[in-house]
């Protein structure tokens, strides 16, 4: 329930941002709408719905929320966080390093750091995966992938 309220608060923030952005665009008239009218209406509607939902949750009688167990939370989010960080790295270096380097490197780091495989297993699987990926997507399907600074 706590998480739900936080999400609703974030959505309220999004709605306010949208409302402000829409006001900066031409609104036009009803019969000749400007680009800002539809986003304005939608952001207003989103704001109303989120405030209503949040209000109902505050009025609803519920059990006292348990105190946050930060250790348990960290254990739950540890692997997803690693996946996210590695994916951010892959996206950042995608074009500069090129597919042939990023693919086995990404697989190796994922298998080792996120999946918990042993170093040599992760290395072998990463290299094998990279090679299969290159053969299947680039050579067989002809998908165009970046070559990177090394031009491979």
């Amino acid at each position, binding site marked *: 329930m706590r*998480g*739900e309220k*936080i*999400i*609703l608060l974030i*959505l309220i923030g*999004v*709605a306010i941002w*949208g409302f402000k*952005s829409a006001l900066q*665009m*031409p609104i036009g*008239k*009803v*019969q*000749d*709408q*400007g*680009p*800002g009218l*539809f*986003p304005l209406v*939608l*952001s207003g*509607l*989103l704001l109303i*719905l*989120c405030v*209503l*939902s949040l209000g109902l949750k505050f009025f609803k009688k519920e059990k006292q929320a348990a105190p946050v167990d930060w250790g348990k939370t960290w254990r*739950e989010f540890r*692997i*997803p966080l690693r*996946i*996210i960080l590695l*994916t*951010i790295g*892959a*996206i950042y270096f*995608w*074009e500069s390093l090129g*597919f042939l380097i990023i*693919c086995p490197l*990404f*697989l190796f780091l*994922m*298998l080792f750091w*996120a*999946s*918990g*495989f042993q170093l040599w297993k992760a290395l072998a*699987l990463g290299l094998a*995966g990279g090679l299969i*990926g290159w053969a299947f*997507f680039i050579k067989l*399907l*002809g*998908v*165009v*992938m970046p070559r990177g600074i090394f031009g491979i």
Partner: protein
Amino acid sequence: MEIFSGIFQGFSAALSPYNLYYCLIGVTWGTIVGVLPGVGPLAGAVLILPATFGIQPAAAVIMMAGIYYGAMYGGSTTSILMNIPGEAASVVTCLDGYPMARKGRAGAALFISAWGSFIGGNLSICGIVFLAPTLAQFALQFGPSAMFAITVLAMLLISALGRGSTLNTMCMVVLGLFLGTIGMDIMTGFLRMTYGISELADGIGFIPVAMGVFGVSEILVSTQTVLPVVIKPKFRELVPTREELRRSWGPIFRGSALGFFIGLVPGSAHIISSFASYALEKKLSKHPEKFGTGMIEGVAGPETANNACTGSHLVPFLSLGIPTSPIIALMMMALLIHGVTPGPLLVTQRPDIFWGVICSMYIGNVVLVILNLPMVGLFVNILRIPFRLLFPMILMICLIGIYSVNASRVELAIMLISGIIGFFLRRYSFDCAPLVMALIIGPMMEIYLRQSLMMSGGNPLFFLQSTLATVLLGIAVLLILGSILLSYLKPQAKASGKKGI
């Protein structure tokens, strides 16, 4: 007569070696993604999307449709063998399918599930053969006011029938509609909320968002669950007893009818039809107390309803060009990429695609029955691959798939951001499918609204001048009032101690 000549044309197209080959790829891949927990039918379809660029549009949609109903077949396998639904609509199958497996009747459960799906799927296709072209002809008379009313009704149905709280689902729908406004305004060319990012001029892409919300978030969620042991049935145990077959016929035919009609409604029709079928069978049973302990009716009905839904769910898409679920929206994308616009004119302008897709579903259903039963051993072995080995490869394929569409790192970033957002939304019981659906329907809704108001000179009563628009908007209002009333009555029903399924 036109329908029969269309069917003949459709079978000619569907039975061509070219289209047959892609149908086979689609149903096989669909079954595999349905079996694998962590990869849903939408993620599976997006992964194979790059492969559709170089093939004919009819084959592309046939392959996507194959993934769609193949995943419905495959989803029941994990429900029965592992008590984990392969996809959301197979949740109900766990209730009696897994207890059957624990009693040594896994093979019978799988057989009845496949057989019921086959019959439900085929009866549903018979329905769309007559309904879709008729509706398409009727839809040619629709003006922008009627089309606007249809999109409003679609959005409200998705809100009302979504999972979780109606108010939260409506927030997701409106958020999706709002995000759909980002990009270039089609009517004025004005760039809305792009902040100088040129890739956003075409709007936030549906494919990266769908991939993120359904693919990446699924991976993030699945890393937090521990998968149980798989029960492996022997091949000779696949044949059900006469008694089991006799008890299955009623649920199969009832499930077919229920699934077909529920499938006409946009939104989570698969989930609703399977739950509705389970509830119906329990109500009609002489031994309702035995449901949950391994009743064959609890498998036959829901699985049939789930697959019967698949055919009718395509009707609004084929006849009106309105996608009723994210995967159908992806099929729409696949057609748009090939320069084919789905809608009422599809049946006259591209009958090869229209009838080809429908007829390929007959063929696909036959292939699935042949595939699912003898190959259950293979699927069990796939299930044994540790998820920690699979997910890095799935993630890599997601990145390759998204990059191959527009060669854009911004879209990779959108996919990841959508995945993170989807992870938290799902964790805190927000339904993400309505958000994705609204993203694609929103721009259509805006265009129809603006056209209607321009034609009427700004007079909102213009919508009431069209009988169809009036009826549809009236239904929409009743739906809102009904949802409010239901949310008021539900707490009172709980207080008086009434039980559901």
